[in-house]
C-alpha cells in the first residue's frame, strides 16, 4: 500500500483513492458535493499549460481545481 500523498503532487495520468479530505472551508463543502469524498477514485488528467489548476476525472466527469485546494486533499495512489 502506497503512502498517502497530496493530490497536488499526484503524477499526471495516475489514479488514486481519496483518503483524507478537509472538514471545513468554503471550497471543501462544494468539492464534497461535487463528489470528492473519502474513498472516491479519481484520475489526474492533466495540469493546465501554466501548471495550475489541475484537471481530475471522477465519477465519470471532469473537474478542475487549483493546487491550493488540492494541497489539502490526501490521496493514495493505486497501482
Amino acid at each position: 500500500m502506497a503512502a498517502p500523498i497530496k493530490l497536488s503532487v499526484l503524477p499526471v495520468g495516475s489514479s488514486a483513492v481519496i483518503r483524507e479530505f478537509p472538514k471545513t472551508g468554503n471550497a471543501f463543502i462544494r468539492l464534497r458535493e461535487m463528489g470528492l469524498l473519502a474513498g472516491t477514485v479519481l484520475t489526474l488528467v492533466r495540469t493546465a499549460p501554466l501548471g495550475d489548476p489541475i484537471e481530475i476525472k471522477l465519477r465519470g466527469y471532469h473537474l478542475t481545481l487549483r493546487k491550493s485546494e488540492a494541497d489539502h486533499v490526501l490521496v493514495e495512489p493505486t497501482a
Partner: protein
Amino acid sequence: MAQPSPNAAPAGSAAAHRQPVYALVGNPNCGKSTLFNALTGLKQKVGNYPGVTVEKKMGTTYSQHGQPITVIDLPGAYSLAARSPDEAVTRDVLLGRRADTPPPDRILCIVDATNLERNLYLVHQILDLGRPVILVLNMMDLAAQAGLNLRVGRLEKSLGIPVIACEAVNGNGLVELRLAMSRADLPLARHAWDVPAPIAPAVSELAASLRENDGKLPLSARAEALLLLTDQDSVRVAGSAALSPRTAEILFAWQKRWEGEGMDWAGALVGSRYEAIGELASEVVLQTGAFGPTASDRIDAVVTHAVWGWLVLGVVMTALFLCIFTLAQPPMEWIGDHTALLANWVKSSMPAGDLRDLITDGALGGVGSVVTFLPQILILFFFIGLLESTGYMARAAFIMDRLMSRVGLNGKSFIPLLSSYACAIPGIMATRTIEDAKDRLVTILVAPLMSCSARLPVYLLMIAALLPNDRVSLGTKVGIMLLMYALGTVGAFGFAWLFKRTLLKGAPPLMIMELPPYRLPRIKDVCLHMVERAWIFLRRAGTVILGISIVLWFLTAYPKAPAGATPTAQLAQSFAGRAGHLLEPAIKPLGFDWQIGIGLITSFAAREVFVSTMGVVFNAETHDENTTPLRDALKAARWPDGRMLFTPLVCLTLMVFYVFAMQCMSTLAVVRRETNGWKWPAFQTLYMTGTAWILSFVVYQAGRALGF
C-alpha cells in the same frame, strides 16, 4: 415570535385556480436551456429577479389537453447549498422563499444521463422538498455512445416518480414528457434515505423549530433543516429571510456539540447522500462499452496542451476579432447610412424647427451612433454563446486561470475581458458566468478599460494628427496603436489587482469548475440567446441612451445663434461650447482647450463621436470636408496666443485620456443593469475619468518638461 415568511402563503392549494407552475432545475451543462426552449418555444419572458442580477426566465408550454403550464427556468445549480447568487435564487425559489416568484407546484429535474451520479446529488436534495418531481434523463444518445446502458424502468421503480428518457436536442422524449406533465396527479417520491443516526435528532429538532419559529411549511421544513446542516446559507440574496434566533440557537448548539466530538456532520450528510446515490446508480447504470478515451478527451489533448493549447486559443480569438471587424463592417455602414437617410427624410418632410432638429440631430443622431455598434455586439454575443455551448469557454478559463489569478481573479473573467476589446457591453453582460459576486463586480469595473472599437477612430485621428502620413513608417503607427491597447490592458489588470485587495476584498478566490464534454453547438439556441441578449441591451440601455442623446443635442443646439450662423459658430456659443469653456481650466493642465472639451463632452454618446465633433468644431467652416481632411484642420488649430493646439504631445495625451476615461453611456446603462443601481456606474465613471486625468496630466507635464 413567528416571523412572516413568503413560505407561509398557501402553495399547493392554489394550483386549482391558476395554471400549474413547474420549476425546471438541473446542473449546469445538462441541456436545461435546450429543453426549456424546446418546451416553450418563443413563449418566453426574460427579466431579472428583483434585487439580484440573476436572470429570471419564465415560459409557457401546453399540456396534452392544451392547458397552459408555466415553466420557470431556474439557474443551473450543483447543489441547494448555494455558492453563488444564481444558485441562491434556485434554492430560494424551490423553497418558496421568494415573494416575487410563484412557489412551484411541481419540479422538473433534468439530469445529464452520461454523468448520472453527480447529477443525482441535486435531485436527491430536491426529493427532500416533498413536491412532485418528474425526472428527465437528457442526452440518452450520448450516454449510449459512451457505452452506458441506463435502465430507465428500474430508476422509475426505485424512486417512484416518472422518469423520462429524452434527447432535448432532437426533441426525442418531449411527447412523453408533456404527457407526464399533463397528469393530474403525480406520485411523491419513495425517497428512502436515512439521515446518519447521530444527525437525525438534530434534523427533527431544527425542522420543528423552523415550522414553529420561522413559519416554514411542514413540507419544506425538513429540507431546510438538512440544508442548514450541510452548509449555512452562506450566499444570501435579496428576498431571502434570515433565520429566527431560536432556530439559530439550536443550530449552533448542535454544531458546538459535534465540534467537541470531532464529528464532521456536513461531510457525513453529503457522504450518506452519495452512498444512497451510488446504490441507485449501481442498479440503474450498466457500463457495457469499454472505457478508453472519448472524443472529448482526444480534443482536450490538443486544446489544453501546453503548446497547442495556446495556439488554439490564439486562433479562436483571432477568428473572433477578424469576424467582428470584417463581418460587422458592412452592416455598421448600412445602419450609419440609413440613419442618415432617415434623418434626411425627416428633414425634408417636416417644417424646419426645433422639433425637427430634436428628432434628426438628437434622437436619430444619438441613438444611431449607438445602434451602429449593434452588429458588432450581436456577433460577439453569438461567439460567446458558441464558446459556451461547445464547452470551449471552460477550457479557455482553465488555460488562463493561472494568469488571471495573479490579479486575484479566476479564469472565468478572461472571456468577458477579452470581448471588451471589441465592445465592453457584451463583455459585461457575459460576466454572469462568474459565480463569485465580488469577482464579477471587479471584472465589470475594469472591463471598459480594455480598448474597445469605438476608441479606434479616435486613436486613428490622433495618430494621423500626431505624425505626418508620408514620412512615418506604418510600423510606428501600429506601434503607437499597440501601445494604447497595452496601456488599457495593464490598467485593467492593475485596477483588478487593486480592487481585489482593497475595495472588494473577498474570500480566497476559487476555481472549482466542471469541464463539460465538447458538444456540437445548437445554432438555434445560440441565435435565440444572441437575440435575447441584444434585445435586453436595447430595451434596458435604450431609454438611457435616448435620454442622454437628447440632453447632448440640447446642449449643442441651445441657446440659438443668430440666424445664418455657421454650425461652428452655433456650437461655439451653445451650452456645450460654454461647458467647454467652463471645463477649460480643468483640462488646460492636460494641454486641452475648450474646443477639445466639447469633444470630451459629446464623446459620452460614444467615444467615436469625438471625431465628428472635431469635424464640426474645426472643419465645418470650410464647408469642404473632402478636400481638407480633418487632420489638416486639426494641425491648423491654434490657441488664442498663436501656439499650435494639436502638438504631437497633446495628441498623445488625448489618446491616453481616451484609454482610461469612462465616456460611454451605453456601457454605463448596462453596468447599471448588471449591478442593480447607479452606485457602481458612478464609481466607475469617477475612478476611470480620474485616472485618465491624472495620467494625462503626468504625460503632458512630463512631456513639456522634457521639451516636447
